């Protein structure tokens, strides 16, 4: 594969992962947020696929297919079923409003470039040069998790963190051994399944609720 045909798509796919993370902060409609998350999963799978094609690594190719299936389709489908039960559900009052959230995202992206300087310096190259994008996605996920109050938004925040870690993994190492990759994908899938069950149970018990209404336990 020629240099251009590798660098271009790789940057595009990795950049799309970050763009999706920012858009999840911008949208309030939970259904739209879940769709953006699906797009992000597809972009993540595409990143792994481009890397696999470039390095002719079959293991990474299998990983790409696995990621595409789990994060692009299965997990969003699971979340869509939670959202569908709650029509018109929106993140109405996040702890930090949308414009401020977008500003924070910009700051977090700068921070992640500063923080990953040492890492990218160890192996200069297109792929590892893009690794800060993964870190930025992790930080945006953190931000989402700590400022949004709907159960689904928190699950999405968790998945942003996870996608960011996965992106950094692909870009830096070309994928972890297949056994580990398989285990991590299975774990993520199970976490979402369990969170979905919990969210549904809480919805059934408390009605439409924000997570900060949970105040049974405190000191």
């Amino acid at each position, binding site marked *: 594969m020629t240099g251009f045909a590798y660098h271009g798509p790789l940057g595009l796919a990795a950049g799309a992962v970050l763009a999706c993370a920012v858009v999840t902060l911008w949208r309030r409609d939970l259904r739209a947020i879940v769709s953006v998350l699906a797009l992000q999963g597809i972009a993540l799978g595409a990143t792994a696929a481009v890397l696999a094609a470039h390095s002719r690594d079959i293991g990474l190719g299998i990983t790409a297919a696995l990621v595409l299936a789990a994060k692009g389709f299965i997990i969003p489908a699971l979340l869509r079923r939670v959202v569908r039960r709650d029509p018109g559900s929106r993140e109405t009052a996040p702890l930090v409003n949308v414009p401020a959230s977008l500003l924070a995202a910009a700051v977090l992206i700068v921070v992640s470039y500063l923080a990953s300087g040492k890492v990218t310096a160890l192996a200069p190259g297109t792929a590892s040069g893009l690794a800060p994008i993964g870190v930025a996605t992790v930080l945006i996920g953190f931000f989402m998790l700590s400022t949004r109050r709907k159960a689904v938004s928190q699950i999405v925040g968790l998945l942003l963190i996870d996608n960011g870690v996965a992106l950094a993994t692909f870009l830096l190492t070309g994928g972890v051994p297949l056994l580990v990759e398989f285990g991590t994908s299975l*774990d993520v899938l199970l976490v979402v399944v369990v969170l979905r069950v919990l969210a549904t149970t809480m919805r059934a018990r408390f009605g439409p609720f924000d997570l900060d209404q949970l105040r049974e336990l405190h000191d």
Partner: protein
Amino acid sequence: MLIYAVLAVPLAAGMAAAVLPWWRLAGWAAAAANGAVLVLGIALAAEATHRRLPVVAGGVLRADALSAFMVVVIGAIAFLASVQSVRYLGAETGRGACTARHAVLYTTLIQAFVSCMLLAVLAANLGVTWVAVEATTIATTFLVGHRRTDGALEASWKYLVICSVGIALAFLGTVLVYFAALHAGGHAAGSLDWTSLMAGARRLNPGVVRLAMGLLVLGYGTKAGLAPMHSWLPDAHSQAPAPVSALMSGVLLTVAFYALLRFKAIADGALGPGYPRALLVVAGLASLGVAASLLLTQKDYKRMLAYHSIEHMGLIALGAAAGSSLAIAAVLLHILGHGLAKGVLFLASGEILLAEGTSEIEKVPALLSRRPVLGGIFGFGLVALLGLPPFSLFVSELNMVRAEFTAGLGWAAAIALVCMAVIFAAVMAHGRHLLLGEAAPQGQREAAPRIVAVPLITGLLACAFLGVSAWPLEPLLHAAARVVAS
């Protein structure tokens, strides 16, 4: 062979529990399987100590003295907890709070949980260890919520979200170590293996390992209940059924810490001991501070025990920071002693909750006169946990403090001792009310059968025995400490 058996026996019991229609039988089968893990763990430990070589199986599993020691800890506490689980399930189904299906699910999940912990300590590959630790979170979430009250639901949500975030950070740290190993001239396939990482530790890029170690301490520290990511712990440990709390507090925390010990050894090789030590001292002292300040005003005895676990994890982190062979041996003895004592106390607290119907300290006075057996166990358990002789926690705390002074961490040990003094006073005050207090005249509720006390007293006796004489463990502790000591 032995390694496969250690993993297969509890897993088989879990699968049997899933299909057997009799939950009581399945519960006893699970208890027997976990007892077998203890026995197999001792055999594994004998082999690993004797041959001075790790037992390996199939390239995926590996048991050195440290892994074998952890198998013994897991087996011992899982055995106590699963014996008590049968009683918990009996009581819950008896009052109609739990259907037979839920009882079956409970036993299956407990066995999955125990198997995941065993896999975490027996994996040769640190990536697999990560997968197993994350899997323990998933298995325990439903167990935390098993009582299906509002509080239990809230606790399981917080538990799963916070621990998943923490463990995701630990994965990023693991990946960075892998990245450093890839660029240090190792081969890709084997570079997350403990042996190859340790062999090449000196060649790892220090800048990358520094970042990785920070993420690992934060990430695995979340699962180990170290501040600042400890906030899930008091909720989850207080809401979970008592045997689950015993397992989570007694072993799950230290299984996560085990992963940290392994990575610390690698970071020591790459960076020298200074930086990992600083991280662990900060985490340890912060945990001690949190525990001391929140124990003072605690109103709930299960939460009191949970905060007490944060204190002990802080002490363990400080001991590991000292890092010498003596310090690690003391840390490991503390892991076992704390596991036994905390396990027994949580199980006893479950009995108290069952008998009194409340977990508020205020409403449960004078246990010693009203329920002498249960009160006595609780009292001796508290004495053990506070680090008084003859229990093993006294010996291990003494040795950890000594090692800290030798390592130049005397100032940290001094701060720790102040926090421990505050905690001692706070727990004594709560304990005095619980055990002695002023008993209000009230109708006697169903008393626990005496037989229930047998596993609890056994656990306490084991803890006291190890305090008086550590001879059966001594060679194992030293062999295990050599694996990761700096």
